[in-house]
């Protein structure tokens, strides 16, 4: 379809559907990289994004790790913040009403026990301003010996079942990449009634200071994010898209509209911009506009038609 001529980007229909939620365009911002939204008001028009995923919420306010919490890595960064947040009740009472009504808000839930995950979802479920709930399944599960919820298919199934029962609304499960088979985890989510999956979360990683001979992060381990992880994320989104019919939200090192389009082509219905928000707080909006320009340039009337439009390599049909 390339070379179809420069159509007008304004004429492109940018709307997409993700997990039953209509978005004005496929660009969301990732949980933990966009605060509670208002922090970005000086830099971009929140209503020009597809929406944003707010910082992960726990039942009670939660403090993070002691410093150092972040470190730079080649084309990426490590973080071990430990999901510091204001708690679900303060979010509903103070943070959510501060956002303009036209902003699509997806809440992110996170806990250390399955029953507590379900309780966070119950409290979020009744709030009309919340378009969907995304479950952060990358938390270490204390009862299972510290393994992430999303690393064991049985634990993940139990988690999805519990949160599915706790909310009738659109439910996304955010998957950890620290697994052998992402397809298996995607199938678990589909089997337990999730409405969509978001992937990938940060990759478990480590950095060392040779002068002090200590880990750079106080937590020793952290999550690697940024452009360094993008090819891994694309691979996982593609594999998940082959395995399930669930809508997919692609995440991992997106810095430009072209990066975002790669995820759509691999089967994502929408994307989340993460670490790039730190570097350039205006970029998410530019990416949203750039996707429409790409669609126009390549003769796609609807951005939604980019989803799964990946061609086979020459001479290697599937």
């Amino acid at each position, binding site marked *: 379809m390339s070379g179809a001529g420069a159509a007008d980007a304004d004429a492109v229909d940018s709307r997409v559907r993700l997990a039953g939620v209509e978005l004005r365009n496929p660009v969301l911002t990732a949980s933990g990289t966009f605060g509670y939204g208002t922090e970005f008001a000086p830099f971009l028009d929140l209503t020009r994004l597809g929406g944003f995923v707010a910082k992960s919420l726990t039942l009670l306010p939660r403090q993070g790790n002691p410093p150092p*919490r972040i470190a730079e890595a080649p084309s990426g960064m490590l973080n071990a913040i430990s999901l510091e947040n204001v708690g679900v009740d303060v979010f509903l009472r103070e943070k959510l009403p501060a956002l303009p009504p036209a902003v699509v808000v997806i809440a992110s839930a996170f806990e250390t026990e399955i029953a507590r995950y379900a309780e966070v979802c119950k409290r979020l479920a009744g709030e009309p301003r919340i378009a969907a709930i995304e479950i952060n399944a990358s938390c270490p599960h204390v009862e299972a010996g510290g393994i992430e919820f999303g690393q064991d298919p049985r634990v993940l199934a139990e988690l999805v079942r519990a949160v599915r029962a706790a909310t009738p609304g659109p439910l996304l499960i955010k998957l950890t990449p620290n697994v052998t088979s992402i397809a298996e985890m995607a199938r678990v989510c589909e089997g337990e009634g999730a409405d969509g999956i978001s992937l990938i979360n940060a990759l478990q990683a480590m950095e060392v200071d040779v002068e002090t001979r200590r880990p750079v992060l106080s937590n020793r381990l952290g999550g690697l994010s*940024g452009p360094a992880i993008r090819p891994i994320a694309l691979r996982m989104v593609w594999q998940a898209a082959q395995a399930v019919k669930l809508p997919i939200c692609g995440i991992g090192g997106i810095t430009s509209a072209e990066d975002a389009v790669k995820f759509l082509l691999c089967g994502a219905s929408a994307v989340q911009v993460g670490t790039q928000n730190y570097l350039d707080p205006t970029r998410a909006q530019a990416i949203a506009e750039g996707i429409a320009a790409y669609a126009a340039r390549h003769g796609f009337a609807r951005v939604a038609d980019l989803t799964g439009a990946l061609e086979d390599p020459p001479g290697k049909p599937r």
Partner: protein
Amino acid sequence: MGPGDLPSPLRITAHVLFNRVEGGLNRRLGLALARWPTSEAGQFVMLSPGPLGPVWRSDPLLPRPMAVYRERRAGAGAELEILYKLHGRGTQLIASARVGDALALVGPLGRGFALAPPGAPAILVGGGTGIASLYALARELAARGPVQVLFGARSADDLMGVSDFEGLPVELACATEDGSRGARGLATALLEQRLARATPGDASPWVYACGPTPMMRRCAALCAERGVRCAVSLEQPMACGFGVCLGCAAPLAGGGVALVCRDGPVFDAARVDWEGLR
């Protein structure tokens, strides 16, 4: 000062006016900005790690926090001066920027220094690159009352901006660890002498410190012993500079943490957990 009083930060492309060697590994960067709200003394900017080229580079990835050394209005915009030291890959790449090159900048960020009341004596203690955070403050304070500026560095080459401070109506003293300029030793020894010299009945000075953590920790202790008010400007690794990455946490004396970028970088030294700060 409440958050509503601070100007909204913006993200803007800055153009290099000059980028010159200041002695040793120190560099002085001049940037032209087409738009700029007036920043307050002690605020900072996030600067892309190197000039923007035709192809976007992702390594190194994170912008670098830099104190606004000096700011001159230019119409709706401004010219900013930033003093920095070659430290790693990011600053090496910033040093490669030539006149006319573009750098991405986000700012002004953080909360600056509360000014001592008119007439109150002030003592500024700057160590190494920390000096860069104090020039705008020194200039403002010098218009209000007596100011002493105490600088410390490893050697004379590591001192930044001394000639600028010599142009201000302030009393300036330096200490270097190798004795190559001023007293041999630490800036904190100079502070200790100044505080010891005060006699009962003298107006209590306002102390401001920016430098390596051990230097600020010592300043905080010296001031706490004497009941002297001390403000410090902290530095921690940060990815965004505007309160969302939560990377730049500094431990507080009463427990919990504050974000250096949003709640600081300037803090009352008594609020900081100096043992927990690394």
